[in-house]
C-alpha cells in the first residue's frame, strides 16, 4: 500500500510541481563533462570518484528540493527509504522509477534496477573505459548517498552492473551503514 502511495506522490510531483525541460542538454552536458574529466585525470578510477563526489554535493542540496516539492515525512524504515528513493526521487528528477530488488536478509541492502537511465542515452563507452572500470553514471550513486546522509542515513552506494558495460541491466546497490545520531553534525566523525 505504501508503495502505491509513494508512486502517486512521485507522479503527482512530476506532473504538477516540476518545470520540465528537454533532457538532451542535461545528457549532453553530463557526457561532455565526463569526457573532460577523463582527459583531466587520465584515470577512470579517479573519474568515478570525482563523479561520486559531485553527486554527493548535489544530493545534499537536492534532498531539500524533494522534501519541499513533495512534503514527504521522515521514512520509518529502510524499506520506505528505498520506496521513496526509487519512486519519488528518481521520478521527480529524471522521470524514471527504478525497480527495487535483491533485498539483503538483514534488510540493510537493496538494489535499484534502472531499466531506462537517461544519462545513458546517446552514450557508448570506448572499450578502454569499460576495461578500466569507468562507471559512467556514477554521479547517481553520489546523489543517493548525499541525499540519504542528510536524512541521517550513512550509506554506501555503488554500481554493480551497467548496460553501457555490456551488462543486461543497470543496477545500483545501496547499503545502509548506520543511522547517524541527530545530535552530532552529519559527517562529523
Amino acid at each position, binding site marked *: 500500500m505504501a508503495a502505491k502511495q509513494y508512486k502517486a506522490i512521485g507522479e503527482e510531483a512530476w506532473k504538477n510541481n516540476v518545470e520540465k525541460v528537454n533532457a538532451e542538454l542535461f545528457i549532453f552536458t553530463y557526457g561532455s563533462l565526463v569526457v573532460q*574529466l577523463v582527459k583531466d585525470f587520465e584515470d577512470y578510477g579517479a573519474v568515478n570518484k570525482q563523479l561520486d563526489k559531485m553527486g554527493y554535493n548535489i544530493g545534499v542540496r537536492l534532498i531539500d528540493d524533494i522534501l519541499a516539492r513533495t512534503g514527504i515525512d521522515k521514512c520509518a524504515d529502510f524499506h520506505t527509504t528505498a520506496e521513496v528513493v526509487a519512486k519519488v526521487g528518481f521520478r521527480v528528477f529524471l522521470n524514471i522509477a527504478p525497480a527495487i530488488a535483491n533485498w539483503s536478509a538483514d534488510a540493510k541492502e537493496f538494489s535499484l534496477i534502472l531499466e531506462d537511465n537517461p544519462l545513458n542515452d546517446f552514450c557508448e563507452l570506448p572499450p578502454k573505459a569499460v576495461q578500466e572500470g569507468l562507471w559512467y553514471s556514477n554521479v547517481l550513486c553520489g546523489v543517493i548517498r548525499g541525499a540519504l546522509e542528510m536524512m541521517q542515513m550513512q550509506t554506501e552506494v555503488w554500481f554493480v552492473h551497467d548496460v553501457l558495460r555490456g551488462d543486461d541491466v543497470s543496477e545500483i546497490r545501496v547499503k545502509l551503514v548506520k543511522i547517524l545520531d541527530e545530535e552530532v553534525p552529519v*559527517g562529523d566523525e
Partner: protein
Amino acid sequence: MSNTATGPVSSATQLLSALSLDGRNSAEGRQINSSALEFLLPELVNALVSTTLRTKQISERIALGLDAQEDASDKHSPSTEKGQEYNATTIPGNPSMGSGWLDLPEDEELVEQVCVKLEMVGFRVGKRIAERFSPLSRRLTDTLDIVKFICKDVWTLLFNRQVDNLKTNHRGVYVLQDNKFKWFLRMSGNNGGAAAARRAQPYIWLPCGIIRGILDSFGTNTVVIAETLGLPQCTFQIKVVSEEQMVARA
C-alpha cells in the same frame, strides 16, 4: 532508443532513418526536471576547478623536482589552499550552502584555464545538439540562418524561450541578447552585482561553447564571447572567422 530498428538486419541505413525519425518525433522528446541541470552546473564548474588545480599542482611539483613533492603539499600559497577547500565543496552538516555556488579561487590564471575547459565542454555539447536537432525540413543556407536557428529552435529547446534580440552588422558579427538567461536567473548573492558577475563568469563560457559548437558543425568558424551587464541579462557576440583569418592566425 533504436528499438524501431530491431533484428539482425538493422543496417546502417535503417538505423540512420530510425535516428532521424526519432529526432523528428521527439520535438518534446524525453523530459526531465530542469533543476537537474541547475544542480549539475555548479558541480561541473567546481569539478573543473579542482581538476585544473590538480593538474597545476602536479606540474608545479614536477617543475620543482621530485624532492619538492612533500614540500609542495605543505606550503600551499593562499590561493591554492582556497582551491583545496574547493575539493571538499559541500561540507556535510553545512547544508546552508544551499546554492552550491561558491567563490572562485583568486588565481586568475587558474580561472582562465577553467573557462577554457568549460568552453570546450560546451563546444562538444553544441556539436551534439547540432547533430541531433538540425532542422530536416528546411535548409540552412548561410550563417544568418544558422544563427536564427540557434536563437529560435535551440534556445527554445534548451531554455524554453527564444533569444530576445538579434542584431547583425551583416559583415560577420551577430549579437544575441537574452534578458533573462536561464542559468543566471537564480544566481543571487549578497556581495553586490560585481561579485555576482564575477562568480557567474565561468557559467557564461558554457553557452559560448555551445553556440560555437553548433556553428562549427555547420562549417562556420567563429569566436563567441559573452558579457553580462547585470544578471540575469546576457549578451553573446558571435564573430565569424574566415579561412584566411584562421590561416593568418596560425
